[in-house]
């Protein structure tokens, strides 16, 4: 692919949570990721991997959870988001970066109609007058493929299905034509049919508006289908970043394990490969690589020292496994 402009540059980011005046808890200690303009990046991890907190770094909402970026750099379009002041955020949030929350949790404000919801999103741009807002609102509902926009405009969230609510949220996120949309598990909890539609919608939006999208999920097959690149997170650290087409040449045991444990690859009632154990809980991270208790390729060197950082394999492919060379030919066809 032609070299694209770098939009998001995250390097060695650390995120810490303030539990009390004296106690701090590190929930992300090494996150590195690069997203280019118009690129669809999948961010994969289990619950507790820190992926959601990393997303909050993009919306400036870390503070609301008593968290802050304690190290590393987070650059968006050249703007330093770590040191960003509220004025900068006002400029960025909603305008340059849109956010789609997890479907099961937030969603549209229950006391606002779709119309009001969209109006709120559009009001961030002071240059739009009432007519322009109305026009753009209808336009947005069409973009997200809602069939009777005139009716839906007047409806409240409780009258909408899960899929439609998410479409409204997506409409709000892209309202002001942002450069980047961060979608945090947008289809978790929704039926697979709706999930497929929403994924297709995101792809269409990316194609039409060249919006970069960071899609957060725990579901590898889903991400692999839809995204250009994939970054994998485990227990507070990014462990691999690669093009999705290269997934079979993955060079990190966790990614390999996630790929192999796909249900659709298993023969009916046959052997289903699983990743043993659970990721270490935040606060009880062990020494060395935090995947070492669950890893099929673990060696003694993996048990000590700090968590490994990214090693550049090619321009597009980074891995945090110190044994990457020896695991290269163990990803067989499956």
């Amino acid at each position, binding site marked *: 692919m032609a070299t694209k402009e770098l939009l998001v540059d995250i390097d060695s980011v650390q995120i810490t949570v303030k539990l009390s005046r004296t106690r701090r808890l590190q929930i992300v200690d090494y996150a590195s990721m690069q997203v280019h303009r118009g690129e669809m990046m999948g961010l994969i991890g*289990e*619950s*507790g991997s820190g992926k959601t907190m990393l997303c909050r770094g993009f919306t400036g909402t870390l503070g609301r959870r008593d968290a802050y970026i304690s190290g590393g750099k987070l650059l968006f379009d050249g703007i330093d988001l770590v040191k960003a002041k509220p004025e900068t955020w006002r400029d960025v949030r909603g305008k340059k970066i849109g956010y789609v929350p997890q479907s099961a949790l937030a969603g549209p404000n229950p006391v606002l109609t779709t119309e009001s919801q969209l109006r709120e999103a559009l009001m961030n741009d002071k240059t739009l007058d009432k007519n322009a807002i109305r026009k753009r609102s209808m336009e947005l509902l069409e973009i997200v493929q809602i069939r009777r926009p005139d009716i839906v405009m007047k409806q409240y969230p409780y009258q909408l299905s*899960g899929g439609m609510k998410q479409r409204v949220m997506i409409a709000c996120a892209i309202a002001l034509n942002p450069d980047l949309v961060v979608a945090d598990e947008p289809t978790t*909890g929704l*039926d*697979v*049919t*709706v*999930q*497929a539609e929403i994924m297709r919608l995101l792809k269409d939006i990316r194609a039409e508006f060249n919006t970069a999208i960071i899609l957060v999920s*725990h*579901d*590898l*097959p*889903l991400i*692999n*289908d839809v995204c250009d690149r994939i970054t994998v997170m485990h227990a507070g650290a990014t462990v691999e970043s690669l093009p999705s087409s290269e997934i079979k040449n993955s060079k990190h045991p966790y990614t390999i*394990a*996630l790929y192999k*444990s*796909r*249900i*659709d690859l*298993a023969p*009916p*009632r046959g052997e*289903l*490969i*699983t*990743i043993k154990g*659970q990721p270490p809980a935040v606060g009880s991270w062990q020494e060395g690589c935090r995947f070492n208790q669950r890893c099929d390729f673990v060696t003694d060197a993996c048990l000590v020292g700090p968590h490994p950082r990214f090693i550049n394999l090619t321009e597009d492919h980074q891995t945090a496994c110190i044994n990457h060379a020896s695991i290269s030919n163990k990803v067989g066809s499956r």
Partner: protein
Amino acid sequence: MTPRLEGKNISVTFGDILRKVEAVKNVDIALEPGQTIGIVGESGSGKSTLARVLAGIQVPTSGQVFYEGKNIWQGKVAYSGQMRKKVQMVFQDPYESLNPRMRAVHAVTEAVSFHQNVSGEEARNVALNLLERMGITGQDALKLPRALSGGQRQRVSVARALSASPEVLIADEPTSAIDQSAQSQLLRLFNELIADGLSIILVSHDLGVIRYLTERVYVMESGNFVEAGDTTQIFENPQMEYTQKLISSIPGHITKSR
């Protein structure tokens, strides 16, 4: 051969005179001994309601459920006496399936002492062994549900259900609310239990999960069975448009990659 569990002419209608919702419309379903079947459909298809009717926790508006030929309803009570142990259920929401104030080991010990002829220390040991088989370590067994992950909670629920030594396990969307890696662990566990002789009725909106575990599947839409047949058949040769839609929605599009 008498089906192990069978539902005949099942209809469930909710609501009152003003507004009726027909969740299940006159369906027939049968589970043969040793079989594992699936009920697949989107939200609102009525599949969970049907599962609950089969489990005896939902009274059908009409129709009957038979366990090994015997009607499960005796008066107002379903599955009385020894029959109760035979059919157990695992629910979708791992966050609601366990008593928030009971530690995992206690929840399972309670079930063990109720169903097996042991009590006290012995019951606790049986419970711990059962949890171990489900992949819950001794240390995790002592935790309260809120300290366990979604996948772990589901496995505790399974352990609890297995304490009754059931013949049939009805699983209502057990994988929908947990991570992919936890899903694989749970499905693998189900596979092992099937190999040990358990029959499972798996309710899900994800055909990929159904495809892995079941021999026979019923496709449900708006309260009706749209299509039913052997799982492999349905996948290779879906007859109805709705079924095709469900298949093409599986993450990974297996039909395309095959």
